[in-house]
């Protein structure tokens, strides 16, 4: 049975690859990334073998604990646990519970993250090549640690599934999940500063008694001759596995008998934006877009960085003009946020396709909403950063560059979203699920779009940069004029081109999106 489950997982993987060339590309990219990490881990382990025993143990415990923590927490906030072998699909088969759990645990390790984690963990004995007994114990510890990773991930995701399954909770979590990534830089630098002092040793000592660090602390205990410590940590590590297994099994029983419900009804009074915006096709598209900006967390996530960016820039360079970059960056982020708008619609795009809506009206409706929001955000950020840096002389140049970039990126996004669709999270879909096959198509279209916008925006950007660096008012006003005129031209041209592409290729886009499902 266990072999069946593993074989099923491999077959699913192979069939997925056969279905789309992009998935092969995605797997190759992920594999290269994984190999790099693996190389670093192996080299790091060998390298650690040359440092002092105490430091060696501390580093292994801290890094190892982060790895286990990552397995437990990341699926909840970011990528989701691999759902190709959903236990619910085996309900009708009468698979013995023990076989199911063992099979799913092993199958969970098939895939790039699992393989890299396993091999990296198995490389840790290399750090103990001078103490053979410790190396042997490190091998046992590595196996226990890998099991803690995969069993723990299954336990946390299954136990918390009913909470995470509720739509509201998912949306809030998805919106909050981005914050740690935004603050990753400052957090890491703070941690590094702290750790360089006395931090590492005490952190490692505490972690070595927790479920996260215990399996990694076995070998250091042997090396230190601390046999009581070894035994106690072995107990912690084994107890972790037993508790995780029990929790998973218990939560599995619950999900199998009480399916997750999506949560209560949500209601909205009246017509909202549909009653306020003009009763024209363009107005209707704008009203729909405005409603989605408010109700669909995917849009909020796309621009979540805007209010944070100036703060980050101000923290990283307290007394520079770098913070002024936040204005143009905000403009670009909001403008570019509609670059996958048709893909975000998904197959619901048929509503546009069966109506006599012209592509240009579709484009303008979407641009109006993103543009209005972008203009407000951009102006707030530009005035705020200019005030903070006390560079009012740079205001015309910055306004020109920012608004110009907003118009340019809106125009570029209007073309790109009519040209390419790729799989994205659909509204209501588990935002923690992974989308295979998206990366390469998304990456290519984004790269082409960036390049095109960069080329169109370069004249304004150069003028604005010169104006700010040289304190030249004349260049500043020139940047403003060029930015507004050039931006408007690019926007109108982009909307026209994107609109006529939609008129011609709309059905083909819908067909592609149907094939994703």
């Amino acid at each position, binding site marked *: 049975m266990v072999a069946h489950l593993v074989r099923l997982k491999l077959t699913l993987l192979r069939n997925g690859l056969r279905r789309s060339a992009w998935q092969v590309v995605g797997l190759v990219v992920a594999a290269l990334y994984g190999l790099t990490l693996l190389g670093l881990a192996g080299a790091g382990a060998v390298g650690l073998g040359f440092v002092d025993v105490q430091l060696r143990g501390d580093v292994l415990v801290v890094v190892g604990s982060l790895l286990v923590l990552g397995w437990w927490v990341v699926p909840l906030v970011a990528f989701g646990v691999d759902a190709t072998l959903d236990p619910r699909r085996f309900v009708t088969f009468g698979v013995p519970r023990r076989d199911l759990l063992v099979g799913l645990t092993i199958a969970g390790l098939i895939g790039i993250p699992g393989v890299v984690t396993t091999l990296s963990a198995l490389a840790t004995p290399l750090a103990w090549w001078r103490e053979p007994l410790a190396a042997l114990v490190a091998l046992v510890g590595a196996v226990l640690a890998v099991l803690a990773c995969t069993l723990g991930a299954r336990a946390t995701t299954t136990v918390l599934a009913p909470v995470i399954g509720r*739509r509201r909770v998912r949306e809030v979590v998805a919106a909050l999940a981005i914050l740690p990534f935004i603050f990753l830089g400052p957090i890491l630098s703070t941690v590094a500063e702290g750790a360089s002092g006395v931090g590492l040793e005490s952190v490692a000592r505490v972690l070595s008694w927790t479920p996260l660090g215990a399996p990694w602390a076995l070998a250091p205990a042997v090396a230190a001759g601390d046999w009581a410590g070894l035994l106690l940590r072995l107990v912690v590590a084994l107890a972790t596995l037993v508790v995780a297994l029990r929790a998973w099994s218990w939560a599995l029983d619950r999900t199998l008998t009480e399916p997750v419900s*999506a949560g209560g*009804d*949500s*209601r*909205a*009074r*009246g*017509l*909202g934006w*549909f009653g306020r915006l003009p*009763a*024209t*096709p363009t*107005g*209707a*598209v704008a*009203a*729909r877009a405005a*409603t*989605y900006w408010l*109700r*669909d967390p995917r849009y909020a996530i796309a621009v979540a960085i805007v209010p944070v960016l100036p703060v980050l820039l101000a923290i990283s360079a307290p007394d520079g003009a770098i913070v002024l970059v936040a204005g143009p960056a905000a403009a670009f982020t909001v403008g570019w946020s509609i670059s996958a708008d048709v893909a975000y*619609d*998904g*197959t*619901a795009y*048929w*509503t*546009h*396709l*069966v*109506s*006599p*809506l*012209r592509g*240009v009206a579709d484009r303008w409706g979407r641009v109006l909403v993103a543009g209005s929001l972008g203009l407000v955000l951009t102006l707030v950020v530009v005035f705020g950063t200019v005030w903070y840096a006390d560079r009012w002389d740079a205001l015309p140049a910055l306004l020109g560059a920012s608004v110009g970039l907003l118009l340019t990126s809106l125009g570029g996004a209007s073309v790109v979203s009519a040209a390419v669709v790729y799989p994205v999270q*659909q*509204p*209501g879909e588990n935002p923690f699920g992974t989308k295979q096959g998206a990366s390469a198509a998304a990456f290519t279209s984004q790269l082409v779009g960036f390049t095109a916008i960069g080329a169109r925006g370069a004249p304004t950007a150069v003028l604005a940069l010169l104006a700010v660096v040289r304190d030249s008012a004349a260049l500043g006003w020139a940047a403003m004029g060029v930015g507004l005129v050039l931006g408007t031209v690019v926007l109108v041209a982009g909307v026209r081109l994107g609109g006529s592409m939609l*008129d011609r290729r709309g*059905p*083909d886009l*819908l*067909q592609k999106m*149907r094939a994703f*499902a």
Partner: protein
Amino acid sequence: MPGPVTSAPAPVAGAPALSLQGLWRRFGQKVAVAGIDLEIPAGSFYGLVGPNGAGKTTTLSMATGLLRPDAGTVLVHGVDLWAHPTEVKRTIGVLPDGVRLFDRLTGAQLVTYAGLLQGLDRPTVTSRTRDLLAAVGLEQDADTLVVDYSAGMTKKVALACALVHAPRVLVLDEPFEAVDPVSAANIREILHQYVAGGGTVVVSSHVMDLVQRMCDHVAVIAEGHVLAAGTVDEVRAGRSLEERFVDLVGGRITGEGIAWLRTSSD
């Protein structure tokens, strides 16, 4: 945008409501629709039946502008759909199968959206939205997000969207799937009134019994071909539509059956 004036296409009097001529569509290696010709007379209630994977959805998608045919022509009241999409789409109402809706809108917002996209003015859209939601029994849920609707309610709100611009031809793909019997009866009544008022309805369905009772014309499709088409009485030739369908499509397995499935034997 004031485009060049190309002979403004006008509906041809006496032309069939929907005329499919030599439609072909291939997906990769698989030919889904292999030369379908179909005449759907104006004012008919036309059923499209076929086994799973017969090409019903593909055919209806091509007939409504959702999928570009590899070859062939679609005429709606004599006007070429793929040559004049904007003009023709004002005259057809569509309920596709297997697609999402803009489900973060409320039911009332979604129907309003469909109406405004068709270019109707606000008072018309407002009153029609109210009428339609009442007719399909969604008055109470007009302010609920469509994402929180049941499958049957979702079908009903999509039907309201298809009707909001009072189209001359209504093309419905599996409209009764997941709809409860009471709602289905209500929908059938709406459709019958619509046909009585001069409209044309095309529905696809798996349920032979339903098609036999509801439709006056029927076409049987399998493996991308039309096997039989005409009035229901012509096609069923004195037998039940289901028997005739099984005859035409084949695939019934007769004989001893599976011996070990007889639980009484042990």
